């Protein structure tokens, strides 16, 4: 078995998509790990109503915990200069305004960029949709972070979704533990391979067909 990226390295690569001046939302799960790698001058939004908050509270500064400073995943944050608060209505208007880069986890992405994220089954009784459909639809640019395959080795990058769809043709970029793949109008384009992997090996792990970019390169950190 070839080496795949750790979650931490995957997050570090994904955070490279954030540029100074960007506004971004980091979804629950893998994207949250990008938080520590956001470049100076970029601003993070929490969809429960904050823009531009500071580092999260952890074991080392539990005394900084403020009950009213919580992000969308329920973590406590510290204040930062220029931070702003707003209600959830405004927050989702912001999300659908096309002014944010969104980073989401994913269960499946189709070759047209359809995303499945909210449900493992179409007979699911209890909704876990949250803000995922809004984030997927409204993003200026949508980057999906996920392992390339399920635990059973099944490709998550598919021709057609088999899981319930969250939003159609919404994904711009897929970053997995073995590759970076762009969704284009001409199909999926392999842009980067994790060190040790060839394009052919990545295609073997992928149900949907990949075009290999002329300038395909090894992933850098």
């Amino acid at each position, binding site marked *: 078995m070839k080496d795949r990226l750790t979650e931490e390295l995957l997050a570090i690569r994904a955070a490279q998509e954030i540029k100074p001046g960007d506004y971004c939302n980091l979804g629950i799960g893998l994207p949250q790990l990008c938080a520590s790698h956001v470049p100076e001058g970029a601003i993070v939004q*929490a*969809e*429960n*109503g*904050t823009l531009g908050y500071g580092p999260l*509270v*952890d*074991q080392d500064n*539990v*005394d900084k*915990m*403020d*009950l*009213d*400073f*919580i*992000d*969308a995943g*329920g973590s406590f944050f510290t204040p930062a200069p220029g931070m702003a*608060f*707003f*209600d*959830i*209505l405004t927050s*989702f208007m912001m*999300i*659908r305004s096309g002014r944010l880069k969104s980073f989401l986890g994913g269960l499946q992405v189709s070759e047209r960029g359809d995303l499945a994220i909210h*449900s493992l089954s*179409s007979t699911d*009784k*209890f*909704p*876990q*949709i*949250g*803000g*995922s*459909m*809004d984030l997927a*639809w*409204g993003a200026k640019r949508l980057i999906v972070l996920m392992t390339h395959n399920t635990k059973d080795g099944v490709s998550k990058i598919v021709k057609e979704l088999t899981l*319930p*769809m*969250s*939003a*159609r043709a919404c994904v711009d970029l897929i970053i997995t533990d073995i590759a970076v793949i762009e969704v284009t109008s001409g199909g999926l384009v392999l842009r980067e391979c994790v060190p040790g992997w060839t394009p052919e090996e990545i295609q073997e792990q992928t149900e949907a067909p990949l075009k290999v970019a002329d300038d395909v390169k090894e992933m850098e950190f």
Partner: protein
Amino acid sequence: MSKICTADKAMARVHDSDMIAAHNWGISGSPGYLFRALVERGVKDLTLCIPNFIPMPEGFVERGLTDPSILLPQVRKIISPFIGARGILSNLSETFLSNLAKEGRLEIETSTHGILMERLYAGATGLGGIYSPVGVDTIVAEGKEKRNIDEVDYVFEKPLRPDVGLIKADKADTLGNLVYRGSARGANPLIAMASKYTIVEVFDVVEPGVLEPEMIVTPGVFVDCVVRIPDEDIYSGKRRTELIQLLAEVMLARGM
């Protein structure tokens, strides 16, 4: 014309079969004191409209966390984009909720965080409906009109106009003007505007003029009753330090 009253008196306006809207997202901004008063009021067949429905582990409500699941025996329908029945914090198994649903004692309608807000907004502002770009061809669009407008597909969503809004704010003045603090703002301002009758629980009440006019987020016209949480109550402002201590212990114990 002071709007200050007790939770008891405020709850007298809540009736069987009412639609109740409330905020729930994380540990702050959700009206735990009013939820308890609603349990004591004992009305039934409620519809609960709530951005998240996140049950708490056993023993945490008594220590100051808010748990909407204490309302379950009174609720016939939940409208929510997120039901935290699978969460690590849950003391309600999915099986338990499934059984309620199977027995016809609980109906669940889903949405997305954003579209639930837009439906409440449409209710607040008197609209007959909106065309949402989110949710097209997904589970939330089932049974709803789909329409192509200027080459984009939309789903028709209807307004929600709750009978009663149960909200939480940081401070109120006696006229019902409200200020919030940090991410505890949540859906509270919108619920105040969308509901036919709005009850707010607050940590503190001040005289008119104390709150900066520029800082007032919810103007008093949207608020019918202001309930100050009594100092001795576990949900009071005075006792928030106990909750911080509890959560700090949890965080340290988990090694986060």
